[in-house]
């Protein structure tokens, strides 16, 4: 597989999973979190698909295309290991969807970042809320692993749901 094939597969998986998640959270109240803005492609897709939801965006710095830079009021800059726990503490509105495309070229660092962030996610999500991530390790606690939609295989995206409270 060439780098071109891989990128096509990854973007297809992202699009399919975002569209699937957007469909699934219909009727569930809550904001969206985009962890990792990057080039802004998935943020652009999320805001296009969910024009009426507020999207809070987290990243270390803004490196996105100028057309994909969020409003400053929705942008939380800094190390996710600090900003996400802060957000959990201070934010009390429901979160319906967390999309987390996080990582560097270093696998060990990625695993440790994901493991540190994972405990925040179940505390944020409303029952029925979804986590969509490129890191399997981010889905921890009592989150249920969901089968990705057809065509979005190959380990590019992992989906989790916070179960309904008993």
């Amino acid at each position: 597989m060439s780098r071109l094939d891989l990128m096509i597969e990854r973007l297809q998986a992202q699009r399919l999973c975002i569209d699937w998640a957007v469909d699934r959270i219909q009727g569930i109240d809550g904001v969206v979190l985009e962890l990792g803005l990057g080039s802004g492609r998935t943020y652009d897709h999320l805001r296009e698909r969910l024009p009426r939801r507020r999207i809070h965006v987290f990243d270390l710095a803004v490196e996105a295309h100028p057309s994909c830079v969020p409003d400053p009021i929705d942008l939380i800059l800094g190390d996710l290991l600090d900003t996400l726990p802060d957000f959990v503490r201070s934010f009390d509105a429901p979160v319906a969807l967390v999309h987390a495309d996080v990582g560097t070229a270093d696998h060990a660092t990625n695993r440790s970042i994901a493991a540190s962030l994972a405990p925040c996610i179940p505390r944020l999500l409303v029952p029925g809320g979804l986590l969509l991530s490129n890191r399997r390790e981010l889905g921890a606690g009592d989150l249920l692993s969901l089968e990705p939609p057809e065509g979005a295989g190959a380990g590019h995206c992992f989906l989790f749901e916070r179960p309904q409270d008993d």
Partner: protein
Amino acid sequence: MIDERNLQDPASSRLARMLERLQTQRVCLEHAAETVASTAGLVLEIGLGKGRTYDHLRRLLPAREILVFDREVHALHDCIPPSAALYLGDFSKTLPALLPSRSRSVALAHADLGSEDPARDRALVECLTPSLLQLMRPGGVVLSDRPFTELGEPLPLPAGVGLFPYYLYRLD
């Protein structure tokens, strides 16, 4: 329940547009490689970028020499061409430098130039055209994301391309 989703345009987000672009590139590169299967000659990758299409080309045409041009290298670590095949600097100097030794010896040239500045792109096309006309072998193919009007009428694109403009020329 009111449908809150916006599903009106399947290719309007930057994610969707990037996908259309990469799918178009893949289909066009594969078509171009088939088209030049019986035309001997080397391959030019003008604009390395991340190196994705270079990586695809070298797998499609493993026996061909591929010369790569860009201002600087910012490709993925495993998509960096060997230094002997890499021509760094301004295209207006690096491409003419192949002449006259490589005249009429190129079977396939892929020029992925697109910036968000149409005037800059037009100037680049104008600057590359005279060199390409001398470098291309009869029957060779030029493929680009920008129109090269001096090369004649573009050919129809192969089936399966995405919603992204691409231009394919076959030289006499």
